[in-house]
């Protein structure tokens, strides 16, 4: 008996349930997964009065078009997203970082993530989901997580098992900043590459390729020349690692990445810049800037403080 549910009129391009992801499974080949853009994920939950590890819907490029059936519920959308709410004949333009009420038969049409990749939809309630290894996060390649490891599909129903009481409307004045540089620590195989290529890596711009998804981001640009060995012994990977296969094109590991890889690592994106990195759309230009470990740690502290600060403003 689920009287509160969302009906999916259009699923969107890659709409999945996500939370903070799952830990301690790399050794059997299961990555973190979880929301790609951690800050926007946390803000969506705070705006709907949820705790910080509450499942939300992540969407990419074009989001879902949903029709709501049931008792009044609140929603919030974060990221750089255009969306509309249809209440009878009334069509309201939605705004990110602000809670909105949905009533029975209202429609929520998430049109576009504009000049970014990922956006988040949180509700003032709890989706009825299956968890695997204590996380709902959907990894569509491994078919792990809620919704049988699949992305959302048209005509499907999403049940809401609980709606939060005493909801207070919330709003945050926040604009996603656009970035030019992604900061990087040299990788463990940095010396596999020619002097010329090392310079190119930190000086040239690279273009985000269309072949990018939750597993990885491929880049196009000047080829990076390997002068030592184009293969290494397969070994562990973490998100943010930049690998260089023999063709000289860069591949950055993202949240659903393979846990082991055999291409040399030229660099690793610092934790502080990961949320910004994943939001780069195909065709965007990216430039890498070298930082050392202690600067990266400081940058992360600043990033985390800023996130906490935003959360506390809600």
């Amino acid at each position, binding site marked *: 008996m689920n009287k509160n549910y969302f009906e999916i009129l259009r699923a969107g391009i890659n709409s999945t349930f996500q939370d903070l992801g799952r*830990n*301690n*499974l*790399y*050794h*059997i*080949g*299961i990555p*973190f997964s979880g929301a790609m853009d951690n800050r926007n994920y946390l803000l969506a939950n705070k705006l709907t009065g949820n705790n910080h590890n509450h499942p939300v819907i992540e969407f990419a490029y074009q989001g879902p078009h949903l029709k709501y059936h049931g008792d009044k519920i609140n929603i919030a959308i974060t990221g750089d997203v255009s969306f509309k709410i249809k209440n009878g004949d009334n069509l309201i333009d939605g705004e990110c970082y602000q809670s909105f009420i949905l009533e029975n038969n209202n429609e929520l049409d998430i049109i576009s993530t504009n000049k970014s990749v990922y956006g988040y939809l949180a509700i003032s309630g709890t989706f009825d989901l299956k968890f*695997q*290894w204590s996380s709902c996060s959907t990894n569509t*390649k*491994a*078919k*792990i997580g809620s919704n049988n*490891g699949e992305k959302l599909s048209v005509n499907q129903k999403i049940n809401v098992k609980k709606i939060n009481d005493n909801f207070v409307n919330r709003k945050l004045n926040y604009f996603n900043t656009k970035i030019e540089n992604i900061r990087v*620590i040299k*990788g*463990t195989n940095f010396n596999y590459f020619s002097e010329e290529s090392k310079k190119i890596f930190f000086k040239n711009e690279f273009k985000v390729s269309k*072949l990018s998804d939750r*597993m*990885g981001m491929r880049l196009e640009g000047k080829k990076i020349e390997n002068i030592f060995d*184009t*293969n290494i*012994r*397969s*070994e*562990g*990977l*973490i998100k*943010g*690692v930049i690998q260089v*296969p*023999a*063709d000289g*094109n860069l591949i950055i590991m993202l949240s659903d990445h*393979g*846990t*082991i*890889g*055999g*291409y040399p*690592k030229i660099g*690793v*994106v*610092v*934790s502080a810049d990961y949320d910004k990195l994943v939001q780069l759309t195909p065709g965007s230009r990216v430039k890498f800037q070298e930082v050392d*470990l202690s600067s*990266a*740690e400081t940058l*992360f502290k600043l990033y*985390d403080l800023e996130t906490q600060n935003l959360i506390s403003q809600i």
Partner: protein
Amino acid sequence: MIKNISNLGDAALYCDFGKEINKDINTQVIKYFKTIQKKNIPGINNLTPSYNKLIISFDLKKINFNKLKKIIDNIEIIKGDSIQNKKFEIPVCCEKEFSLDIKRLEEKLKMKEEKIYESFFEKEFFCYMTGFIAGMPFLGDLDENLRAKRLDTPRVKVPKGSIGLTEQFANIYTFESPGGWNIIGNTPLNIFDSSKENKPNLINPGDLVIFKRITKENYQNYHE
């Protein structure tokens, strides 16, 4: 023993056990992995053992590289705890539609297809590690004459069940995924089952594996 610990980015320790790859070194890696796993050190959120490396990922909010390195430098390895060996026979069909890179291998290895398969199916393999994608076993060691590099550009999609070769290792793609190994066949057997949360992997480090060639008819009618 760990020869050197460096940082991989700002949120992981890169523990190097030396250049060699053999069962002894790999057993050392697994012992460290098991010890650290048991100690439940706050802040560690993932451990990735491989042939001769151990990567320890951590939550930068809770600990940093220097603090964790000190802990790992001084860790005492739990003695005993030998690795159990199970034996598996994996059916493989090598029809054209499955052996995507056999021609590439013929060229690179300067060997005839039949010789490649003969050498491959004779071997008993040791599972060094699992990963890349969920449940994928890394099996060694291939004979010297079967060792080839990865594809220059990895495939965007390798079909589920594909058997791949690279350098001294064979692996099995447990589901469709990107990948750069040389594909020589396909197994109908399910190697990973996420509904078994406690034991999702069929093959685990330390297990022994042989491959058995099957016909297309057997492949199509295969039941576990």
